[in-house]
């Protein structure tokens, strides 16, 4: 058993109605969901694995079976066929008390409509899971108080759920699930009942908590933007079947079928795609050590008005303009550094597209992209940015830098006038 797999679902079926087992047989033989007679298939042959620390999003419209699926993961709905394993142990075929034990210690849940106990205070609600675990009162209240603080509800402990706004109520729901310290967290449309601004806030908070606590989360949603924003991997469901599992970018750029493709059309690409996924190889870069002569030659050959300057290990230094380099060449300076401008305005490779627009406007060159060690890994021409938003990331063949490069004749004359022989490094595409 692989240690890093927290949850494994294999061949899960859920059929409601009479003759459920027969219906599963029919489905296995390839029958469609509509010709099962009286039975209704909610989930058909769902298999997936969720790794430790991952946010796994199950995305589908209403009626796609996602809520049924998540309830099979903690046994609230017993499956018709297939197996669910949490931490390597099957939750199927265990006694009711063993199943309760699994729910107490291994998997907790957050509900769409919060499902708080209205007659208990916030603190008692948060402590509910601990109470069921049998933890003694002072300790569970202390732990609940801490979690309440973490989710940002300090000072609200003695209020009742009805006195809280929707977002705060769901924080209580989240805190209740976190307090149990189970590794696996199931979230059933947890943010769908909240209004958009609060939803966004909660998403950010969830990501923040996730990075601190490293929970493994299965998140159900019908909102593709939410799925793309939160999910490390996404399973898209349709009519009870999982039609594609992949990273958000996978799903966006390689939709498995027409259904997924139609679905992702409405996605706000600027939130999902990162700089890395749209960047191009730079047409040319200039090494810091090379002199003005070499630099100008590169720019002339590539018809560039400006270029980025890097060190030998591709660490970004700055950028130069052809006019400045030309001046250096004319004045016979051997060192490029007076012409280098340091304000390259590069962005990190995991910056989301939506945050690239302003830097792209401010940058004279195609926007530089650096990795975590500050090395130049690519550039994003403005045209690419626009083309990506339009859903045609490859339509940037004519990307031209601005302003127009110097006339070649002028450059040639200047180069001829000076007489240098330093190495030039040219970066092919």
């Amino acid at each position, binding site marked *: 058993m692989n240690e890093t797999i927290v949850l494994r679902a294999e061949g899960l079926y859920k059929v409601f109605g009479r003759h459920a087992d027969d219906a599963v047989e029919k489905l296995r033989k390839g029958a469609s969901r509509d010709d099962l007679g009286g039975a209704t298939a909610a989930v058909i042959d769902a298999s997936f694995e969720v790794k430790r620390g991952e946010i796994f999003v199950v995305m589908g419209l209403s009626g796609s079976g996602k809520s049924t699926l998540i*309830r099979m993961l*903690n046994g*609230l709905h017993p499956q018709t066929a297939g197996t669910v394993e949490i931490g390597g142990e099957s939750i199927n075929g265990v006694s009711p*008390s063993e199943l*309760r*034990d*699994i*729910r*107490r*210690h291994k*998997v*907790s*849940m957050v*509900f*769409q*409509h919060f*499902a*708080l*106990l*209205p*007659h208990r205070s916030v603190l008692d609600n948060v402590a*509910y*899971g601990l109470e*069921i*675990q049998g933890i003694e009162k002072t300790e569970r209240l202390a732990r609940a108080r801490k979690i309440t603080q973490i989710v940002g509800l*300090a*000072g609200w402990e*003695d209020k009742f759920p009805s006195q809280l706004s929707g977002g705060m109520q769901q924080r209580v729901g989240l805190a*209740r699930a976190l307090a*149990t310290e189970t590794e696996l967290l*199931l979230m059933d449309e947890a943010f769908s009942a909240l209004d958009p601004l609060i939803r966004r806030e909660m998403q950010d908070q969830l990501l923040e908590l996730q990075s601190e606590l490293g929970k493994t989360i299965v998140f159900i949603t019908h909102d593709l933007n939410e799925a793309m924003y939160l999910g490390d991997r996404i399973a898209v469901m349709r009519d009870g079947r999982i039609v594609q599992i992949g990273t958000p970018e996978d799903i966006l750029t390689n939709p498995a079928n027409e259904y997924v493709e139609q679905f992702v059309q409405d996605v706000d690409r600027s939130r999902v795609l990162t700089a890395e996924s749209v960047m191009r190889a730079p047409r040319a870069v200039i090494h810091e050590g090379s002199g003005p002569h070499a630099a100008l030659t590169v720019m002339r050959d590539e018809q560039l008005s400006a270029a980025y300057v890097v060190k030998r290990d591709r660490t970004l230094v700055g950028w130069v303009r052809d006019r400045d380099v030309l001046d250096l060449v004319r004045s016979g300076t051997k060192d490029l550094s007076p012409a280098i401008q340091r304000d390259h305005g590069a962005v990190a490779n995991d910056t989301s597209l939506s945050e690239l627009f302003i830097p792209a406007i401010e940058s004279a060159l195609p926007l530089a992209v650096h990795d975590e060690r500050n090395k130049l890994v690519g550039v994003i021409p403005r045209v690419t940015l626009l083309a990506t938003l339009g859903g045609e990331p490859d339509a940037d063949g004519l990307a031209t830098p601005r302003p127009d490069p110097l006339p070649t004749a002028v450059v040639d004359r200047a180069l001829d006038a000076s007489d240098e022989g330093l190495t030039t490094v040219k970066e092919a595409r």
Partner: protein
Amino acid sequence: MDFRIPVGTWIASFFDWVERDIAWLFDALKTLFVTLNDALVWVFATPPALVLIAVIAIAGLMARGWKFAIGVVIGLLFVVSVNQWDNAVDTLALVIVAAFLAVIIAIPMGIWAAKNDKVSKTVKPVLDFLQTLPAFVYLIPALALFGVGVAPGVIATLIFSVAPGVRLTELGIRGVDAEVVEAGQAFGASPRRILRQIQVPLAMPSIMAGINQIIMLALSMVVIAGLVGAGGLGGEVAKAIGKLDVGLGFEAGLSVVALAIILDRFTGSFGQRMGLYSKLRKRQMDVKAADEQARLDSQELVDKGPRRAGF
């Protein structure tokens, strides 16, 4: 046409059998009913009327507020002034005993029916039967089994009033938000615990309405039970009917009304957070919350220093 189903004969012979072969059970029940009733009558009748009225008024103040307390005093003083106090006490005792037993039967029954569809389907027609059979009809076998007195009154009242308690309990439990019950399950609570901590508390308004209905129906039945010698206000009404005494009939009848209104408002206020009691409790909670806030503030002051804490 001389086709006839001898239902009457069957039922009569059934009760004959009951009377003959399991009379001990009814003797035991009779003893229980009579003992409970006598104990309550003793409690109510021993102190002077005014003391009891004061106690009930204070309880009313706690449960519902001063307007209700004044209403209680006026209503009960009226009962005293028409010389029906002793009868009212008898009636009250009988209602409380019958209603208490009905609640003890109705709530578990309602819970069972809520949890099990088969039970629900079986119980429903039985309840319909109990509620629609004319009330007087219960009195005949009750009289046959228990003889004249308090016991037939209790059993007839009990059977007549149990139905709404069962129905409203079932309705309440079934009406509890399924997601909240699911939350209990998802955190690994046992069915018993879910019942105790989630379903019953959340169904409480409905269960309370059921108890209220039980008491109201019990009161209306107790008057009828006066016909079989259960005494109390019902006995007075029966006497008035016998003598065609309009004055006595109305004095007893209005006393029933006073009692009914007081009981209804009392049971209606349970769980509504009205009255002085909940006010005092709320004030106490507020003080506690303020203390806690002050403690947190001072803690913050200590932790962060005065400037950063915003002082």
